[in-house]
């Protein structure tokens, strides 16, 4: 049964046909029902007066018979006699058929019908006797018989009148009884028609709404999709018909398009990231080139300078000028270190050795006006770092921090480590810097006089950028400073990614 039901209602076409047939059946059934009742009542109405019509015909026939009998008895006209017999046969036949319909004595009217039938019989007895007497010219007899026959016709008329009156009374009573209920029947029929119409309207409206609702949902969803919105809710259809199939297909299509677009977005993101990566690489290369250009400016004929300085060292040794020899040797070492390529890696130890050479030169030049202090964790000296990251800071401290102070100053260089970071700290007790300047340093902005007077030609901006690229992290510098109290610059090297970053750097250098 359920399968049959499902089969019927799993198709829109079947649904429409069922609705059509159902509403048609309801309307037709109510119409036929009301028509049947009306026809039956009309038949009854006709039947109510059929008796009166029949009695009227009966009396006319009786009149015809009696008229012809009278004519014969008065005029002895044979045609009248023939007509009398003809009408008598017809009348007798009609009377017989009329009263044979009475299948028993049930009411006063049945008794009257029976009486009339017997009176008709008595009438013909008298009439026949009158005709017979007329033929034998027995005037007294036929007159007496005719008078008796006429009297019987009077009796028949009396009873037919009474019968008509009884039938009329019965009809009136029946009509009054029927009329009251007919009005109620009419009201019930009216209610039936109206309720069937309303029921049809309701059924059709609801089922039409149910069928069009998913289509409207699909239309709205499709409209949203056409606007590029694929995040609408799925269209849900609870029926099992073609609309459900269409809705499921639509939902699947929407999901497929959404997935495809998502993939496109993902691909675009990847491409964007790759593009950013390429831009970053270009920037690194630019920085390296920039640093190298700065360095090359300082490498004007370096071999001539180194050979000359070596000749000077040997000359000073021959002449016994040991301090001069040491001075020139330090100078030569610093130049040699500075002119090497920036795309290599060095150890912290190398950076510190260079700083110490730089200190010796500085002492020769300026005496003990400036003092260098070292607080270095020896275990960290073999850590790889980009070259020339400490010397620019020391130069900045000597030039901008202490250089203008007549009383001189102290430059403290410390290297320490905590759980995550190696801290390379260059601190002076010089002039310090304003908060604005400090913020610019932290924001890695270039300074116009960043490298003025620097031996390396590399500013703090270059140092910071190279550290960020080398260690792939943003937080590589801290600056603490107050005017008149000195400046402390801390370079932060992340411990955990140290080796990895170095490897990356190697790769990066190979790219170049």
């Amino acid at each position, binding site marked *: 049964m359920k399968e049959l039901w499902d089969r019927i209602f799993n198709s829109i076409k079947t649904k429409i046909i069922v609705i059509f047939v159902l509403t048609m059946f*309801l309307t037709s059934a*109510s119409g036929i*029902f*009301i028509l049947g*009742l009306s026809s*039956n*009542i009309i038949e*009854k109405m006709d039947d*109510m007066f059929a008796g009166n019509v029949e009695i009227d015909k009966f009396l006319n026939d009786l009149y015809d018979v009696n008229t012809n009998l009278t004519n014969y008895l008065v005029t002895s006209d044979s045609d009248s006699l023939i007509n009398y017999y003809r009408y008598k046969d017809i009348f007798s036949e009609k009377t017989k058929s009329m009263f044979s319909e009475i*299948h*028993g*004595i*049930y*009411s*006063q009217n*049945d*008794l*009257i019908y*029976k*009486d*009339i039938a*017997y*009176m008709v019989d*008595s009438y013909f007895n008298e009439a026949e006797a009158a005709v017979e007497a007329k033929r034998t010219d027995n005037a007294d007899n036929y007159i007496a018989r005719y008078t008796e026959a006429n*009297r*019987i016709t009077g*009796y028949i008329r*009396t*009873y037919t009148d009474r019968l008509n009156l009884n039938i009329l009374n*019965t009809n009136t009573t*029946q009509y*009054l*009884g*029927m009329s*009251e*209920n*007919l009005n*109620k*029947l009419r009201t*019930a*029929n009216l*209610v*039936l028609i109206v*309720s*069937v119409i*309303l*029921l049809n309207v*309701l*059924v059709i409206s*609801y089922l039409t709404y149910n069928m069009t609702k998913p289509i409207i949902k699909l239309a709205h969803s499709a409209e949203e999709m056409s606007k590029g919105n694929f995040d609408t809710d799925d269209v849900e259809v609870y029926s099992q018909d073609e609309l459900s199939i269409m809705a499921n297909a639509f939902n699947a299509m929407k999901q497929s398009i959404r997935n495809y677009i998502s993939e496109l977005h993902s691909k675009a993101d990847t491409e964007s990231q790759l593009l950013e990566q390429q831009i970053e690489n270009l920037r690194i290369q630019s920085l390296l080139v920039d640093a190298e250009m700065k360095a090359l400016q300082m490498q004007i004929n370096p071999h001539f300078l180194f050979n000359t300085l070596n000749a000077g060292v040997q000359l000073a040794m021959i002449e016994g000028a040991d301090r001069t020899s040491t001075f020139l040797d330090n100078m030569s070492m610093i130049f040699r270190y500075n002119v090497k390529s920036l795309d290599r890696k060095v150890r912290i130890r190398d950076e510190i050795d260079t700083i110490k050479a730089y200190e010796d030169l500085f002492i020769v030049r300026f005496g003990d006006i400036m003092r260098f202090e070292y607080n270095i964790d020896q275990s960290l000296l073999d850590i790889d770092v980009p070259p020339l990251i400490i010397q620019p800071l020391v130069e900045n401290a000597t030039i901008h921090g202490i250089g203008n102070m007549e009383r001189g100053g102290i430059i403290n260089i410390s290297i320490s480590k905590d759980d995550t970071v190696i801290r390379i700290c260059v601190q002076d007790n010089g002039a310090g810097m304003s908060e604005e300047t400090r913020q610019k340093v932290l924001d890695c902005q270039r300074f116009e006089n960043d490298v003025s007077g620097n031996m390396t030609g590399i500013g703090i901006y270059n140092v910071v950028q190279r550290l960020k690229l080398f260690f792939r992290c943003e937080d590589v510098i801290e600056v603490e400073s107050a005017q008149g109290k000195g400046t402390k610059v801390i370079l932060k090297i992340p411990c955990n990614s140290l080796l990895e970053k170095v490897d990356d750097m190697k790769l990066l250098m190979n790219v170049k």
Partner: protein
Amino acid sequence: MKWLYKISLAALFATVVASTALALYYFNMVNKAYDKNSTNVFSGNPKYHFSLIINSRDDEYWQSFKEGVFEAGKAHNAAIEYNPISDPDSIDKTVEYVNIANKSRVDGIIVNGENSPEYSEAIASAAKSGIHIVVGLAESIDSNRLSYVGNNFYDYGVKAAKLISIASDKGTPINLGVILSDASRSEIDKTKISQSDVMLSGLTSVIESEKKIKLLCTLYKDSDLLGAEDLTKSILTQHPDVDVIFCTNAKDTVAAARVIVERNLVGEVVIVGTGINDEIKHYINKGIIFGVMDRNGYNAGYKSVEVLCGSFVDSFQSSYVSIATDIYTAMNIDQK
């Protein structure tokens, strides 16, 4: 929204079913109202066909008589053809119906007709045709009718006189006024004795023998509806010393009682009447009517049919079947 639809659908469906059921119900009621068989009163195959020719419109006795006839008809499977006489003074219609019954070849006739040559002739003709006839009023002594079923009017007069003699507590003699419902008496052959005469004969026999009653007047009522009322007023006016007024049918009895109430003569004049209905019972309980003679019309009608049916089984039937007259006063009226 769905629940509203479901409720509406259920309500409309219920309306369709209910209106269909109502339509069928009212259609059935129409059919019942139309049903011609609902007026059936006979079995369909009655053993006898009797014609009842009486005037039952104005008289309590004949109404009861008719009821008795129809009840007996049901009991004996006899179809009763009721031929009412609308004009009580017209003997012609009675004669016509007797003749029609004759030509219709009925099995029997129960008729109440006043004495007249045409009536007697019609009775004789029907009897000659083999139709058994029972009369409610005795016609000529030489009639061919089968039987008379009714009261012994002489005995009725005697019982009435005895009731009258105890009706008034004013002492003897009791002054009596009599109103007789016998309008055609003046038109009929004075040589023949009417039932009123027989009744009066019985009444006067007691008056003369016991000397307790003084008959002041005997008035005959016209056929108009106010006849008894006028006659009562006439008696009260012409005979202010009247103690008892005797009436011979129910209508006259009620009319006289109303006049007594109207004239504020309750306790002064009492009525002795004939017949019983609810109003008469009321007046008896109030003491306005002392008592009534019940002629037992129902028994007479019932017996008439029994006599006719019996005549087809046993050719010997008594030509005079007396129906007892009962007396009802305030003492026993509740038993009726």
